């Protein structure tokens, strides 16, 4: 099974991207191409979720949302303590990084979906709602912790006024973030739009989807390899966190998926991937602006340079095995 996951074109193109940068190729996507593809992917997955939802069980949807919020706040909290454990990472860095791990990576999720579809495993649509829900809490978490740390420091500081946080605009970010808006908006549209009209958009949002994902992962592979270059500057503590945290998150996801929400193996596996994955599109800009005190070069090195490849290559087959075993208990 593990091997199979590596035979998915999307994963292979990710590998190609990594390889391209390793041999220092001049391959480069034009400015904005990846951003554009990213919007398309969110729109398509949102619609897919919405359509599935229109036929979903209301009660289960609600509990999925509640658990999404719990995980969205809980996971970064766990991450924050792991990072602060040996007091080597500054509080600001810990807050900003934890926020990335509380949030999710759509591309990892989509690769996992591709993995399930190729393996012919069915899955519920609830994880898609949870993906939408889990973007925001982690962002709030990071901003709030950072603000608290600031207050703390300001206590013994003369010009405290200067560091006063503007709560409004910061928290707004958590809900008006572009990715969140497209994802949740498309989901709602998928739920309310007339089915026959939705039929007409399927060729664009569903049929060519997996192919577009390949193009996206090719570029992600290049970016991941670029970030990996800056690994040494990150140091052992952070690098190991990039491996440990997804393992912790994934495990939590499996337990919640099977035991709390009673998902099928496919659904619980997807929730594990959501919990294990770290954001590298929605969260970084928010932290850059909201937590300037944190070292921005760490986020992407960790989420894109370590955790993303780890999840795609090791995590997907591993968490699938773990889910199957846990479900069988």
């Amino acid at each position, binding site marked *: 099974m593990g091997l199979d996951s590596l035979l998915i074109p999307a994963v292979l193109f990710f590998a190609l991207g990594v390889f391209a940068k390793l041999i220092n190729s001049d391959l480069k996507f034009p400015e904005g191409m*990846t951003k554009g593809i990213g919007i398309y992917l969110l729109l398509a997955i949102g619609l897919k979720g919405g359509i599935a939802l229109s036929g979903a069980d209301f009660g289960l949807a609600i509990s999925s949302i509640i658990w999404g919020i719990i995980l969205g706040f809980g996971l970064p909290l766990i991450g924050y303590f792991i990072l602060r454990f040996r007091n080597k990472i500054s509080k600001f860095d810990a807050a900003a990084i934890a926020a990335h791990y509380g949030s999710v990576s759509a591309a990892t999720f989509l690769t996992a979906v591709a993995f399930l579809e190729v393996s012919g495993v069915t899955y519920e649509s609830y994880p898609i709602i949870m993906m939408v829900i889990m973007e925001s809490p982690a962002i709030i978490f990071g901003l709030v912790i950072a603000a608290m740390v600031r207050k703390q420091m300001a206590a013994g500081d003369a010009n405290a006024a*200067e560091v006063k946080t503007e709560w409004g605009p910061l928290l707004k970010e958590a809900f008006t973030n572009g990715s969140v808006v497209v994802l949740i908006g498309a989901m709602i549209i998928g739920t309310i739009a007339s089915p026959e009209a939705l039929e007409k958009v399927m060729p664009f949002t569903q049929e060519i989807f997996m192919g577009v994902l390949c193009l996206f992962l090719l570029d992600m592979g290049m*970016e991941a390899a*670029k970030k990996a270059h800056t690994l040494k500057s990150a140091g052992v503590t952070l690098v190991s966190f990039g491996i440990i945290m997804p393992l912790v998150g994934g495990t939590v996801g499996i337990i919640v998926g099977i035991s709390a929400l009673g998902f099928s193996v496919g659904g619980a596996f997807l929730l594990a991937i959501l919990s294990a994955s770290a954001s590298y599109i929605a969260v970084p*800009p928010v932290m*850059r*602006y909201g937590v*300037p005190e944190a070292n*921005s070069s760490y986020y*992407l090195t960790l989420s894109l340079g370590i955790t993303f490849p780890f999840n795609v290559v090791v995590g997907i087959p591993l968490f699938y095995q773990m889910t199957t075993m846990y479900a069988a208990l």
Partner: protein
Amino acid sequence: MSVEMTKGKAVHIVVNATFERQLIKLLKQAEVTGYTQLDARGFGYSGEQDGHSEGETNVLFIVLVTTEKAQQIEESLVSYINRGYPIVSYMTDADVLTTNKYRKPTI
């Protein structure tokens, strides 16, 4: 005949794209009459900004103003730099073309 130009400063400010909205607020507070923005990449203390994602993109602002206002703008940036925002700024002398029936730009 030759156009006479108004002596002023061209203030250059390089910020991360995520700081763009905030900088525009600051410029409006400083009551500038206009500004020019250019998307940029770059390298500095906060590492490489390759323009791949929004957080890794820089924006170069060029603002034509009087020497006093230039000073005022630079001052308004200091506290942000001290808070950790990657901001680099410099100014050069500029002879601005204001010989036109609107006498614009008002620097």
